[in-house]
């Protein structure tokens, strides 16, 4: 089966996160071919890890004042602050049969094509277990996975030129901890592509696509027409509700 690359569609964070469930479910049901999807956002947001406590991770008053969407993901991992045009996010929806059953190995495997693409534009990046893409200057990106009976969702966010000063106001990093022993994962220094290479964000995305297309025989395509409508419904029912986003 030919893989598909979807490089279109600007959505709110709740719709983006809802699409992850819709597309993973469709692949699980055999209704979607293996797909790489690039995300385009319409406003700054926080993507919270599934098991994180809302008030531990975000500056609650600041995000309310700035009207920043905080959306709990379907995947575990850490909180990411994201801004349109300043990060690169993509998702892979794949059949379980095509992915290593060993989870640690599968992160390395599913990050490798992206690491090779970034190296080809001059970025000295490597996979760092469990789920980081690292540069000598810090963490450039992170991935997170969800597995269903037949499908694997693997999504990755990387910093192109994120406003890290704003990130420090939005996320509760650097604040006094519950325990002095604990250092939050988001405190790992963030490295930004733009600080290290003279390549536009569009060119990085283009390189990711050509690398993926060459390696996996993928072609450009579109989302199933009704998937976005279904995601909007799920966003309204779940990903834009406090019941989901502030459950912890």
């Amino acid at each position, binding site marked *: 089966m030919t893989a598909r690359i979807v490089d279109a569609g600007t959505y709110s964070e709740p719709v983006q996160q809802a699409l992850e469930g819709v597309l993973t479910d469709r692949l699980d049901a055999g209704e979607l071919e293996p797909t790489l999807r690039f995300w385009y956002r319409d406003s700054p947001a926080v993507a919270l890890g599934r*098991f994180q*406590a809302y008030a531990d991770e975000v500056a609650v008053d600041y995000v309310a004042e700035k009207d920043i969407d905080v959306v709990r993901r379907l995947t*575990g991992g*850490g909180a990411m602050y994201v801004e349109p045009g300043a990060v690169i996010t993509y998702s892979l929806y794949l059949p379980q049969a095509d992915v290593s059953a060993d*989870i640690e190995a599968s992160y390395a495997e599913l990050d490798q094509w992206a690491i090779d693409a970034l190296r080809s534009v001059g970025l000295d990046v490597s996979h760092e277990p469990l789920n980081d893409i690292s540069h000598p200057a810090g963490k450039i990106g992170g991935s997170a996975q*969800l597995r269903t009976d037949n499908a694997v969702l693997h999504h990755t966010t990387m910093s192109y030129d994120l406003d890290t000063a704003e990130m420090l106001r939005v996320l509760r990093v650097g604040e006094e901890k*519950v325990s002095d022993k*604990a250092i939050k994962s988001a405190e790992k220094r963030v490295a930004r592509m733009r600080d290290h290479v003279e390549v536009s964000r569009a060119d990085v995305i283009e390189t990711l696509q050509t690398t993926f297309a060459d390696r996996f025989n993928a072609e450009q395509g579109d989302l199933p027409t009704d998937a976005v409508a279904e995601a909007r419904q799920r966003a309204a029912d779940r990903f834009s509700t406090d019941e989901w986003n502030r459950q912890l």
Partner: protein
Amino acid sequence: MHDSVTVNVPDGKLLEVAISYEDRITDVRLTGDFFLEPPEGRADLEAAIDGQPADVSRETLVEAIEGVDARLIGFDAGHLADATLEALS
């Protein structure tokens, strides 16, 4: 008594275990930047700790946690047991 302990798992993730306890552990809440498959296993892990005596042994806790039908990713039953014991101490 109520206590919350946050631990960094070596080369792994951050686990926060919040509990209340008198004779027994109650109101367990497990949060952090770890992974679990399936995600619904979080409630089962909390339930495995909930109701254990406040003087529970590490062995008993590890056994109860390992009895949960979920894959812990980025941490293991020993890390969760140790964080729980630290919250009890």
